[in-house]
């Protein structure tokens, strides 16, 4: 067989596109994933930020009260240390409500299809 002909066939095969396929809406899917990931990051940051602000406020108010009414602060601390399990439980529940409100519920509602999409209509 002619060497040049064989070269031609091989070169042409090298340049022929393989049949790997991605879905037609691949770009939209990727963009949606990127947007959702960004929103999830923002929500999480917002939750951490709020938690930090609340904790800092409690700390500042507690510190101020220590100078105004030392006895009250000591009583509050002794109450908390006496009911440590209940206090931890209450803090956990409150924290979870904040987390659900700021992160989980938003994530859930975003993952649901838009009402127009559910009815099979175009929206944009």
């Amino acid at each position: 067989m002619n060497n040049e002909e064989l070269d031609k066939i091989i070169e042409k095969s090298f340049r022929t596109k393989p049949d790997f396929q991605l879905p037609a809406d691949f770009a939209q899917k990727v963009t949606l994933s990127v947007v959702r990931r960004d929103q999830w990051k923002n929500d999480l940051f917002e939750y951490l930020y709020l938690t930090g602000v609340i904790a800092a406020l409690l700390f500042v108010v507690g510190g101020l009260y220590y100078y105004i009414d030392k006895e009250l602060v000591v009583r509050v601390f002794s109450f908390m240390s006496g009911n440590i399990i209940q206090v931890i439980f209450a803090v956990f529940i409150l924290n979870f409500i904040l987390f659900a409100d700021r992160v989980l519920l938003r994530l859930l509602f975003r993952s649901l299809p838009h009402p127009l999409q559910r009815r099979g209509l175009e929206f944009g």
Partner: protein
Amino acid sequence: MQHLRASCCQTSCMNDSELISQILNGNMNAFTFLVNRYQKLVVHITGRLIQRHDELEDVCQDVFMKVYQNLDKYRNECKLSTWIATIAYNTSINYLRKFKKVVEVNPDDSVVLRNLTDCRSGDYERTDLHRYIHEQIELLPVQYRTVLTLYHLEEFSYQEIEQITGMPEGTIKSYLFRAKALLKEKLKFVVDENSLKSVKEITHE
């Protein structure tokens, strides 16, 4: 709707640097357009490397996620296509390593040729020869497949392939030569004059 169409038209006219600045300013239509523009490049590289069609979409999505996350680090030192191809190559190699598929540094050509010869040597007459060669390319070692895809299919230069894969230019040339020689060696045994004629008819040469 008209506004959306106008914005899509604007993005389609943009060059790469305009597209990047639009994405960095939060225009997600521009990102969708970037994915559309480069998805063929990414799917060719990842498809040839990982060879798992069921995982292809996930790996490609992972590549574009990395592109989006690192877009602010992109400096115009190389073409955007080269930069995206580098991410696609590294992601695919990491995928192969994760699933413990061997990535040989210097493949033994005699073993490779034996693998090629062992596989479906009688089937080619019934199918298109180009399809047969494509099947044989899939059986080549990963480095050979990578350089063949980047050089012949995506038409990157040797320097660009060097940037993408980190292989020296000499190695790239050697892999290209060896891959071609192996396929030629294989085809010499299996293609006769009659089948060559039928291939020419099919491809209208």
